[in-house]
């Protein structure tokens, strides 16, 4: 199963794929950020791959490496019952990768979580805001340079109310038109 996928991926040579490797029975594909959407669309639509499930999106922080962040996607194909792991690098200075919400709508929350935890921007995401933490939270806790014991400043109601109302209004008019 893994071998077939490995040979197909190597022989097809999709544009934007840096390399294809295998580790612990999983196929790992490194992709250039610019080609991510094309590669994902091809992996979803090509019957030789048929990756209709986006199971997971997350990132790994490697401080001191270039690029510092690696965004990791786990795909699964229902028809062919195989899996693949995609990896895209994101530089420390301005970590951003294209959003795959247009390919799999389920990426919405997963990318929001990755943004929340690592501060990686997803270009083209329809609603990129924090998902677990509150909007006034400072920093991105799963980065390796975020200390585990770090305390956050106290946010009072007076601090958040005007900003929250403004954001609420903006979102309402955006999503909702004139009501």
């Amino acid at each position, binding site marked *: 199963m893994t071998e077939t996928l490995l040979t197909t991926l190597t022989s097809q040579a999709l544009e934007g794929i840096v390399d294809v490797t295998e580790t612990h*029975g999983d196929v790992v594909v490194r992709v250039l950020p610019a080609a991510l959407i094309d590669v994902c669309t091809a992996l979803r639509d090509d019957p030789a791959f048929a990756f209709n499930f986006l199971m*997971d999106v997350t990132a790994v922080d490697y401080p001191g490496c270039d690029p510092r962040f690696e965004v990791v996607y786990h795909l699964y194909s229902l028809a062919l019952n195989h899996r693949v792991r995609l990896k895209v690098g994101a530089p420390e200075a301005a970590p951003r990768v294209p959003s795959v919400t247009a390919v799999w709508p389920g990426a919405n929350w997963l990318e929001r979580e990755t943004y929340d935890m690592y501060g990686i921007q997803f270009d083209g995401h329809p609603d990129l805001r924090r998902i677990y933490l509150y909007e006034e939270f400072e920093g991105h*806790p799963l980065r390796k340079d975020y200390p585990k014991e770090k305390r956050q400043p106290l946010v009072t109601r007076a601090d958040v109310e005007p900003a929250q109302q403004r954001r609420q209004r903006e979102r309402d008019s955006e*999503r909702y038109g004139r009501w």
Partner: protein
Amino acid sequence: MSDTDAGSKAVLPDELHGEPLELQMGPSHPATHGTVRISLKLDGERILWSDVQVGYLHRGFEKECEAGEYAQAIPYTDRLNYASPIINNVGYCLAVEKLFGVEVPPRGQYLRTIASEISRLSDHFTCLGAGAMELAAMTPFLYCMQAREHMWDLHEALCGARVTTNYVRIGGLQSDAPDGFAALCREKLAAALAIFADVERMLTENPIFRDRLEGTGIASADTLIAYGVTGPLLRAAGVPLDLRRTQPYLVYDQLDFDVPIGKTGDNYDRYLVRVEEIRQSVRIIEQALAALPEGPVDVDDPRLRLPPKGRVFNRMEELIDQFKMVTEGARPPAGEVYQAVEGANGELGFYIVSNGSGRPWKCRCRSPSFSNTQVLSEMVQGALLADVVPTFDMINMIGGECDR
């Protein structure tokens, strides 16, 4: 009333319509099990727009795992899906074992399978009972809790704890099953099934219950797949995806069981799928108990498990192993793995990155509840407010797992 509104006063229907009602369900709402806030915009009772806000139980699972040794993460996994803790233990330990490239002996595998299914039963009893309660059926809830108590008695027999089990270890189990476990297991399963038969008689053909569930919260298989939804929700929409069957782990490939699927993918199908899965889990446990082999439950590998006390006190080699194990913990080789198991609500995956040290560089949990809860907005769009409750019940969002 503002000046601009005064101009449109003549048009009565618009005036009556007014603006949509904003309603916040939660974060603590009596009709949702799980701490979650659902922001709704309503036109009368119709849902125009909804936004599900999670994170109220976020406690930094991944950050905590990165700060401790591999074995120290196991108690945290209990708290992911606290209705089926042993499945989480198993998923995490299988992932770390994959990094080491070891496999536990057959008896360990069988006991893990049995324990996973006991947990799955506990989860389904919780889901169905709480779901019924939130539709105002109090009695089935109490009956289901009674049935769940029997499952927790079995947890207790295995590991001493009822909820926070911490039962599975990297490379084995906390301990072998106690004497007479098979008999106790059969007795408890029979008792739970007898109680659940009453629950079924109260619910399955109950017209009020069916009215609330039938035809509500429908989502097509394509929508669910696009959102990465797995587990009973997807099977109720007719897709027989069950990792125990499609990518078997432990000893599921040696056991005979069915994967029930639904037809329409509404809430009633989700209920029926779970009811049938309860029967299948019992079948699995019965077969596994009958086939339970003798032998050790732990791998014989000093990198993973402490050597027996008697040898530690009398032999140099084992003393060193014990010392290294206690001070440094298990140190898997550098690498990364993704291991998925079939959780009670869908695919539960662990993605672990090791840099060769005693602590995971990254320990990611792909929780089914997170992906499943995301689709709630889609399911209730245009539906009635009252449909949110059964739909949310059957999604069975578990806060500990969704928010991690």
